[in-house]
Structure formats: structure tokens, C-alpha cells
């Protein structure tokens, strides 16, 4: 049996003491295997960042053990940190250094010493060559994020931890970060990332743990998580139709109106759509704007917690 890259055993982490004691992570056990892209999905405040901080050695768990490549993070922090490449939610760059200097300094912190030629190659991989002599503070937000991502792998780590790598980025910058993460995966690194965007988890992650109020409520591949819902696709169409007639269409399990849109939950979208077309033809009505929506991780989160990913933690 191969050794897990990251192994959490009954980890509980809290902030504050006494009356102000607030648990952020509650009894989490989890193993991330080598070569995975593993996602921690949950709303803001769910405990994702604290969980990562426990792995990074930045937060001491109240109980439980965290191992990185077999090293206990609390007992052998130096050995554990050496295996990790990290990017924190706040990019926190030494912004009076140039891009090239930052790469060399961060590599040196891990006792990896780059020649100028190696630094050049490294920057080219992250599409930062033209900014080599620019101060980090002069970069755009997207460029800073890309640099933070680059700095996470200057030490050629086996395991990369990324905390909200694409939050607050425009779609274009987000794509570019995704490409870089996929390349890290191709380089056989283990990647753990946090996100509150279900499309990011679906696009990147082989496995996803859904976190709510400090607990892991589900953990599986995105496809299995969605399949576990046993939910039907929803066919949406803009058409005026009596609901009883809509319900009697083949395959339809439930029908409702959301504004002008007729929403049909159907086990047989193809059949339902064909029947809907002919019915509309017979009645002389037109169908506009037909869409088929497959169930996704957002629905999984809603089903498990009763809330959406954007709502944040409930106050109970």
C-alpha cells in the first residue's frame, strides 16, 4: 500500500479559548493519495482554510494528528514543510522585490539555488518572462496570483496546497490558473485546493470533500457525488402550457413554473423534449429558449446542508 501524501486523523482545530472558543474544524479524518487533485468545497467560513493551515503547520490542531508524506506536522515541521509548496489566500508577496528576485529567494528558502538561466526557464513556464525585472507590486491582480502560484512550486514540491487560487479573478485569468494547476498535476504533484465554486471543483478535481461547519459531509469523485443524489436532469423551456398536460408528458417526474420558464424534471430528457415539441405544434404554441440542466455539485451541497454554496454558514 502506498503512503498517503496527506493524512488527517481525527483533527479538531479551534480559535480562541474559554467562552470565546470557536471550533473551525471538527473531527476531520481524510487521506489524500499521491497524484490526486483533491478539492475542499464549501462556503466561506466552512473551515477549509483552517484545515489547510493545519497541514501547512500554521495552525496547531487542538487534537488529532496531521501527517505530510508520513511526517507528523507538529513533531517534524521542517521535514513536512520541505515536501509542501503553498499558496495562501492572501498572496502576501514581498512586493518590493522583482518577480525574478522573488523566485530566487523563495527557492533559496527551501535551499534550492537557481541559476539565472533556471530562473528564466521557470518564469517562462508561468508566462511571466516579460515581467522578470518588474517589482511585484506593479503586477496586475491576475499576474500576482500567477506569481503566487509559481512561488508555490519553486522548491519542486511533491505536494501543492492552494487556498482559493482563483477567487476574485476574471474568467480569463481563472482559465490561465486552471491550466497551470493541470500542468502541476501532469508533473505528478499531489494537489489540494480549496474553492467555493462548484464549477472549479468539477473542472479540476478527481475527488472532492464537501465541507460544512467544520465537518466533511461527503467525499467522493464529483460524478459519484452527483450520481448519489439520484436526481433527474431538468428540462427548461419558455412555453405556456397547462401544468397537468406538462406532467403527463413521457418521462416527466415533476413539473413547475419558475417565472415564464416551464421546468420539467425528467428521467428521459430526449423523449420528453420530442413529446413537448409535438404537443406545442398541436396547440399552435411556440417554444423558446430550451435548456437541459444536469444535476451538479451545487445540488449535492444543497441536499446535504439545506443551503447553497453562496449562502455561507448558518448561525446555529
Amino acid at each position, binding site marked *: 500500500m502506498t503512503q498517503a501524501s496527506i493524512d488527517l486523523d481525527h483533527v479538531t482545530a479551534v480559535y480562541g479559548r474559554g467562552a470565546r472558543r470557536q471550533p473551525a474544524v471538527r473531527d476531520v479524518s481524510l487521506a489524500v493519495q499521491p497524484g490526486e487533485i483533491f478539492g475542499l468545497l464549501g462556503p466561506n467560513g466552512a473551515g477549509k482554510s483552517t484545515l489547510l493551515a493545519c497541514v501547512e503547520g500554521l495552525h496547531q490542531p487542538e487534537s488529532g494528528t496531521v501527517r505530510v508524506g508520513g511526517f507528523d506536522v507538529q513533531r517534524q515541521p521542517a521535514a513536512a514543510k520541505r515536501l509542501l509548496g503553498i499558496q495562501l489566500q492572501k498572496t*502576501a508577496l514581498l512586493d518590493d522585490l522583482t518577480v525574478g528576485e522573488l523566485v530566487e529567494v523563495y527557492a*533559496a528558502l527551501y535551499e534550492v539555488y537557481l541559476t539565472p538561466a533556471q530562473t528564466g526557464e521557470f518564469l517562462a513556464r508561468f508566462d511571466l518572462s516579460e515581467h522578470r525585472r518588474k517589482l511585484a507590486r506593479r503586477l496586475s491582480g491576475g499576474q500576482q496570483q500567477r506569481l503566487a502560484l509559481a512561488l508555490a512550486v519553486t522548491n519542486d514540491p511533491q505536494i501543492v496546497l492552494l487556498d482559493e487560487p482563483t477567487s476574485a479573478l476574471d474568467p480569463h485569468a481563472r482559465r490561465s490558473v486552471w491550466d497551470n494547476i493541470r500542468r502541476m498535476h501532469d508533473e505528478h504533484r499531489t494537489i489540494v485546493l480549496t474553492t467555493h465554486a462548484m464549477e472549479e471543483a468539477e473542472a479540476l478535481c478527481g475527488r472532492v470533500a464537501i465541507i460544512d461547519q467544520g465537518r466533511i459531509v461527503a467525499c467522493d469523485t464529483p460524478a459519484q457525488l452527483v450520481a448519489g443524489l439520484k436526481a433527474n436532469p431538468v428540462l427548461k423551456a419558455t412555453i405556456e402550457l397547462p401544468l397537468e398536460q406538462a406532467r403527463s408528458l413521457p418521462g416527466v417526474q415533476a413539473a413547475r413554473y419558475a417565472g415564464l420558464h416551464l421546468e420539467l424534471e425528467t428521467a428521459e430528457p430526449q423523449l420528453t423534449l420530442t413529446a413537448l415539441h409535438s404537443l406545442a405544434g398541436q396547440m399552435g404554441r411556440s417554444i423558446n429558449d430550451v435548456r437541459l440542466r444536469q444535476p451538479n455539485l451545487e445540488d449535492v451541497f444543497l441536499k446535504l446542508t439545506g443551503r447553497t454554496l453562496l449562502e455561507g454558514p448558518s448561525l446555529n
Partner: protein
Amino acid sequence: MQRFLIFTKAMLLIHLRAREVLFWNFAFPVFLMLIYGVIMSGFMQWLTPGVIVLNALSFGLVSSAAVLVDMREKGILRRLRATPLPAVQLLGAYLIVNLLLGLTQGVLILLVGVVVYGMPLSLAGLVLGLPMIVAGALTFLALGQVVSGLAPKAGVATAAGMTLYFGLMFISDMIFPIAQLPAWLQSVVPYFPSYAVVQLVRAPLLDGVLAANWPFNLALMAAYALAATLIASRLFRWDPKA
């Protein structure tokens, strides 16, 4: 060792590239010397060692402490803590860079004193005086870390440091002779760290010898430095206060 040198160089670059740091560290002390020269022209030889210590005081209590607080607030200390860089090396690099800057300022002010105001300076004075300037700067640096360790934010640290600085400025025999102060104050002032440092620095620079009561002043300064270092290391935080 290579790691430590690269990181120390990075810390030095950060300090040298911040315009306001450059101004306060190098332009302001010279400006101060020239201003004092205009208003107190007859006293500049007596005043020069005082300005050196005064400058070390503002450097330790205000400007150098602010850089570390700023790094903490931006999350840079947290980011560095996640790397295998030992804390000793991080603080060591910070200390070396600040000592280097503090010493450069002292030499700059001394140079103005000698060149512009004709201060006589002997080799013995330089050999005895420079180590005292360095030791004094280190003491103030440690005191500055106590202040920034107690302060919840960078702004508060600067305000508290400034208040202490201006408080000590006029009563420590630096730019204002202690003989002019009320009697009760004169009996308290010799226990202040700033007073001890001025006495340790002034006699060598002016007369090339240590002042008669140097063992007491040296012990007092060392006690302040030690106590401040111990307290500062207890107060040291990687993360901003939540």
C-alpha cells in the same frame, strides 16, 4: 548559510527600495544636523553625539519596528513561516539589516559633525564610540520590538513609538542638557536607557575616553537590552491579531 545570505540580501533590498525608509534613514538625519546647526551653532560639537543617539532611538522605536509590523499585517510573516526558513534566521537577517542601516546613519551624522562643525575626532574615540553606538542601536531596536509586540496594529505601534521617542528626546541629555531640568527629573533620568546610551557615546566621541561612570551605564543598557529581548520574544506574533 547560502540561504541566510540570500534572504538577508532580500531584506536589505526591501529596506533600500522603500522611499520613505530611505528618506527617514538617510536624508532626515542630515537635515536634522543642519537645522540644529542653524539654531544652536555654538553647541554642535556637544550636540553631535546626542543627535546620533537620538537618531538611533527614532530608528529603533519607530521606523525599524514599523517594517516588521507591516510584514506581519500583509501576511508576509505567515507566508515565510510556512517555508522551512528557521525563525532564528528570519529575525537574524532582520537584525543585521537594521544594524547596518543604523550604523550607516550614525556614521553619516558623525561625518556632518566633523566636516561641517569641525568636531575633533580621535582614533581612540572612534574605536570606543562606534561599538557603543551599535550596542545602543541594538537596545533601542529591542525596545521597539516590545512596543510593536504590544501594539495591535502598525499605526498604533508608530504612534506609541513616536510618543516614547518625543518623551525621551528632551529629558535624556541628548539635545538638551540635563542640568536645565527640574531637580526631581534630574534624579530619575539617569535610569533611562536613552540617558545611559548618550553618556556611553558622548565621552568617547568628544574626548576619546569612556566617562567615569561607564560601568553603571553599560550595565543599565545591557539590562534594558536583555529585558526587552526577553519580553519581545514572548510577545512576538507571526499573525496579525484576529
